């Protein structure tokens, strides 16, 4: 049994879980290829132009899987992750959108997770995930979910220890745990605030993390934080959890804005993202209040790489200069203090 999983959107949040869960039940997962320019344009051709980039990318990945000859596609609708905490409409209606715009013959597995409804909880979601494949033994499904969580937890433990996400994903899927962090000490520390599906998709983010690394900058993301830390972050910005994926944005930003080790923040959002528009607004206003440098970057399928790099370089240059000035100033202060001390004590 083979099912196809588009390498887009919630793949970046839940894939380790899906891997553990489906493997335990003997289902083989096939991933779509990595995002390319032509994949994005094949996706954009099917949806209206106002649709946000991540959804266009997602449609492209579905087409890629179908081209590969996979005719069972797994596309869950994550409606809400806690009572009255809902997801963005486009993610809620993802399978509906796919069903209506992709005019091909295939089986769409479309489970719904809605914690705001009493009968649409987690086990129901898992049941709907595998029932179309003929697996209906609820006990077996429950057991498999444990394997899923094990894989997911291994992944989270590694990312929180500072292992970069692609490596952690690879290790978790192979059943390894390794804490070899490739992060070396840099000249400044920057927190990159973005959804996983934007940041770790090399086509969308234009390999931003790698670029920061080349500029000798340490980059931190929401994957390095625990849920408790991100809850604290949301509190820091005087708000409540509203969106299902708000932890990645407001939570991480709130935490890093108050973190003295972090020199500045970069936000990366896709053009037309609804939840981000208000989350970034809040982050920007609070960055001003907390006096923390912030760079807002928006990307879409037309963004040129050169302009992108220039802005990141200018921002990190500014951070490094600011840091250097503050070190020089504190050294000067020390010298002045020593001279004053000498005068007071009267040693000359």
């Amino acid at each position, binding site marked *: 049994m083979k099912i196809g999983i588009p390498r887009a959107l919630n793949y970046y949040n839940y894939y380790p879980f899906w891997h553990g869960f489906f493997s335990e039940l003997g289902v083989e997962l096939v991933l779509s290829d990595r995002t390319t320019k032509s994949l994005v344009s094949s996706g954009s051709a099917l949806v209206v132009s106002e649709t946000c980039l991540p959804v266009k990318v997602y449609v492209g990945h579905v087409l890629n899987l179908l081209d590969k000859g996979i005719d069972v596609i797994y596309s869950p609708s994550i409606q*809400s992750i806690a009572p009255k905490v809902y997801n963005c*409409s486009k993610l809620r209606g993802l399978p*509906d959108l796919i069903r209506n715009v992709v005019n091909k013959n295939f089986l769409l597995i*479309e489970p719904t997770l809605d914690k705001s409804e009493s009968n649409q909880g987690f086990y129901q979601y898992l049941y709907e995930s595998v029932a179309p494949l003929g697996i209906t033994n609820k006990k077996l499904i429950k057991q498999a979910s444990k394997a899923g969580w094990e894989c997911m937890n291994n992944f989270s433990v590694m990312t929180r220890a500072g292992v970069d996400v692609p490596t952690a994903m690879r290790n978790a899927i192979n059943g390894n745990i390794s804490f070899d962090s490739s992060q070396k000490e840099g000249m400044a520390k920057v927190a990159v605030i973005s959804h996983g599906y934007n940041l770790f998709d090399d086509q969308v983010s234009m390999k931003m993390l790698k670029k920061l690394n080349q500029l000798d900058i340490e980059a931190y993301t929401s994957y390095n934080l625990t849920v408790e830390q991100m809850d604290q972050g949301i509190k820091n910005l005087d708000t409540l959890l509203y969106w299902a994926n708000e932890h990645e944005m407001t939570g991480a930003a709130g935490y890093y804005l108050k973190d003295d080790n972090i020199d500045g923040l970069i936000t990366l959002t896709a053009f037309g993202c*609804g939840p981000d528009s*208000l989350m970034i607004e809040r982050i920007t206003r609070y960055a001003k209040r907390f006096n923390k440098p912030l760079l807002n970057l928006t990307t879409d399928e037309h963004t040129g790489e050169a302009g992108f790099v220039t802005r990141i370089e200018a921002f990190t240059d500014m951070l490094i200069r600011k840091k250097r000035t503050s070190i020089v100033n504190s050294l000067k202060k020390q010298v002045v203090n020593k001279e004053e001390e000498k005068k007071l004590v009267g040693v000359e």
Partner: protein
Amino acid sequence: MKIAFPHMGRLYIALSAAIRILGGEVVVPPYNNKRTLELGSLNSPEAVCFPYKLILGNYMEAIENGADALLMIDSPGICRLGQYSSSLRTTLSDLGYDVKFINFDLYKGKLKELYVKFKEATGNANPITLIKAINMAILIINMLDDIDKVLSYYRARELNPGDTDKRYYRGLREIEAALSYKKALKAKKNTIEYIKSTPIDPEKDIVTVDLVGEVYVVLDQFSNLDVEKELGRLGVHVNRQINLSDWVKSSIMPSALRFGETHEEKARKSAKSFLKRDVGGDAIESVGDVALAGKEHSADGVVHLLPFTCMPEIVAQNILPNVRSEEDIPVLSLVLDEHMGKAGYITRLEAFVDLLRRRKRKSALAAVAS
């Protein structure tokens, strides 16, 4: 306390009547205009939806006019609307305004929350007056929708363009002034009489169009460049499918007090084969209304309005081409934002109406031939 609230079409008439009955002081900000939009856009994030910008503009103009308490609605699971008030509050405090926010928090309950918040806003704790005020608001909302239905019929058939609207606005002023049920009902009767006195051509060959989409832009004449009037001028009988009275019925009234199937439930049923789940906002109603119009042949075409970057409606907009081909009904989706130009907008409406006319004629000919 001087209370203000944002505009949405003619909602201000109902809300200010309710607050005045309670003895509160109302500051109605100037109706949405270019300046409102400019003030709002200047202080809003670029990619936020169109209604947010207008509401922020309304608040700023209301504060300029002396308001010191702002009403807003908080509702879970809809879309960005649920975050409006918290984001607006941050923005207004960054701008240096010190005002009180009164949130109707539909997280907590429906009628009770309405009661508690009206009490907080006006200081009037008399439950009988409060119930009277809420009833009055609901009465006016229902009344305006009834009047709009008559208006739409006469506007499409009027002999002299603009005649019906003149009479309609005369009636509106009477409704605005009414402060009791009796006077309001009288004003309603008068308004309908005024409209019915418009000289019309009842035999005129008209086309019918259903108007669906996101509730704010459908109901707000400034945001949709008064699409109903423009279509009426082109000889189109517009049936607006999104009405405030329906919203009141499904969102405010407790389910025990409801009679019959609400519009939302009906739309949900017919949307089922295209959109299985609620994705927030009015998306499921948009899809359902188009499917229904196609199935029941109740309209010649559908105009679908949405604000730029509206998340639920983008899902609907993506699904509509499929509905259009399966149910064989023409749909025109119009995206609205602050950069909308009137000339291009009207050209598109004219082209759409031409298409509907030709289609109607063709099918009439086919019917005759067979």
